[in-house]
């Protein structure tokens, strides 16, 4: 059974007298464990698709089954439940609670899921360990770098053990090295069995997915499977800016390789 099943899903906004067709009868299935990138220019409908799949928005037409259950008719409270139990979100601007520790941020979904404090604590610490922030548990979000904040956000998305993680331009505010670090995380999660849906307009980022959808004018234009680029390899090829150089690269390379020199950096 596919995890996501969209059947002729439409979304029409009214802006005054004008009807805006954000989605035009999109039909789509995504199997479990898949890593899908959704591309498209702004206004192509990719964000609307994301919001509907993420149960943040409801379609005006068609049917949407998530994990076999029809969700397009659920009310706000029930949608909140689905978001809490089945979904995880990662946003472009991290969207952590400010002046709040990493741990508390990661605990947030568990809080609304009614998980008792002790278990919440344990699972949040575990999730932070999984994204490599075991030593930053008590740092406040505003004391961390962009890459660290996004890793906290990933930990927050995976702490509920969701079926699907939705990432909306997750690397849009990150430099290329941290972009690769985050993509390593996503590929690990996909391997671990979590389905990933990633919205991006950078082909370099989409290259790490195993399936790429390109949207235009509210329709899926192309839908292709591809051989995903391995993010760990890319990470190994670049020296971290201010850490020990990893073993492998020749010693005569500059220690602080400017990330902008990398060939993947195609668009701003």
């Amino acid at each position, binding site marked *: 059974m596919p995890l996501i099943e969209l059947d002729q899903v439409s979304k029409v906004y009214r802006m005054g007298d004008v009807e805006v067709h954000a989605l035009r009868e999109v039909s789509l299935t995504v199997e479990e464990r898949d890593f899908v990138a959704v591309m498209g220019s702004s206004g192509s409908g990719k964000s609307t698709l994301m919001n509907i799949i993420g149960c943040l928005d409801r379609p005006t037409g068609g049917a949407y089954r998530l994990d076999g259950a029809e969700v397009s008719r659920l009310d706000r409270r029930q949608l909140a439940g689905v978001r809490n139990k089945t979904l995880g979100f990662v946003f472009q601007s991290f969207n952590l609670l400010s002046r*709040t520790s990493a741990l508390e941020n990661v605990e947030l979904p568990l809080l609304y899921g009614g998980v008792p404090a002790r278990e919440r604590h344990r699972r949040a610490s575990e999730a932070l360990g999984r994204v490599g922030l075991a030593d930053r548990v008590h740092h406040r979000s505003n004391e961390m770098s962009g890459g660290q904040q996004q890793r906290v956000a990933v930990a927050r998305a995976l702490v509920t053990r969701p079926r699907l993680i939705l990432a909306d331009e997750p690397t849009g505010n990150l430099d290329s090295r941290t972009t690769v670090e985050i993509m390593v995380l996503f590929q690990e999660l996909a391997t671990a069995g979590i389905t990933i849906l990633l919205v991006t307009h950078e082909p370099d980022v989409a290259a790490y997915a195993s399936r790429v959808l390109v949207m235009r004018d509210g329709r899926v234009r192309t839908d292709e499977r591809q051989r995903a680029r391995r993010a760990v390899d890319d990470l190994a090829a670049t020296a971290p800016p201010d850490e020990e150089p990893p073993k492998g690269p020749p010693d005569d390379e500059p220690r602080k390789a400017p990330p902008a020199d990398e060939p993947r950096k195609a668009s701003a």
Partner: protein
Amino acid sequence: MIPLETFRVALRALLRNKMRSFLTVLGIIIGVGAVIAMVAIGEGAKAQVEASFASMGSNLLIVLPGSTQSSGARGGFGTMPTLTWDDLAAIRREAPAVRYAAVQLRSNAQLMSDDQNWATSVSGTSPEYFLIRSWKAARGRSLLDSDVDASAKVVVLGQTVVDKLYGAVDPIGQTVRIKNIPFEIVGVMEKKGQSPMGQDYDDCAFVPQSTFQSKIQGGLQKFISGTIFIGATSTDSTARAETQVTDLLRDRHHLDSAADDDFSIRNLTEMANAQADGMRTLTTLLASIAGVSLLVGGIGIMNIMLVSVTERTREIGVRMAVGATPLNILLQFLVEALTLAVAGGLVGVALGIFTAGRLAAKFGWPTLVRPDIVLISVCFSGLVGVVFGLYPARKASQLDPIDALRYE
């Protein structure tokens, strides 16, 4: 989500903005503080009035004689003696609601000790007078019936007179001269304090009524040249005693139904009640003004909560994205408002009690902090928090998650 967790989330959000939280509750603090302090002042004044009436005497009626009338100018009550000694005997005998009756014959006179002198009010009376006013001797003894029967030249002094004439010396057994006539001091009365009108009860001297008539005043024998103090049998019977005495005196003075009374009766219990009513009105007035400031404080909370909802739109979006239901969001903001208001209420209570204490110390105003008012104020401020927090909280809970997440 568990209620305790909601409270913790709210508390953490408030502590993240300490300064703003403080400014938000300032209105409530001042409002509750004002209510507590104002009511404490009002209640204190009321208690003082009640106490001073009680010290005048319980269940007290005062009968004043009629007025003189010479060529059209009327002299006011007490200027013409119309009450007779027979009237007094009749009141004692025939008015069932009257427990005690005593005369107070009064004159101002110069009192002289060996080395000091002092002008005060000298009264001629009988032992019942002290029963009516529940007034006991602090030292020595009060007047006795035997003093009255023997026209003894004995005097009982108020504390103020003792202070003026003898200072710290024990005056019992000493001789004081009133209008140059020597009297033996047999007792000093307990301190009574001030009358409701500010008159010093302790600036006085009492002699037996018979002695007063023969030595100090002279003249009238049949009429009472003073007032009659009446103690009713109970607080409830003061009105009945008033009617009985009125009927009895009108009958004895042969007044037909068209004629005015040739005496007047002051009902001290009613005066006390009227005064207490006035104080209650004052308290209510002060409390209402203070209550308005509490209301304004509530509007302040609503204002800041609305700003807070707008400012934290993204946060609300994030919370919704990770699974907060509209109810979770509603409760979070409602609990924030409630926490602010109740915390403000508690601080306000402390401020109010402190202010009342300071006022009492500085101006000598009597204050009385009533626990029930404290409780009501805190509950009311909680209610203010809920009422004024509801609108912003509803607004927050009905945000669209997508719009909230995109909000800049």
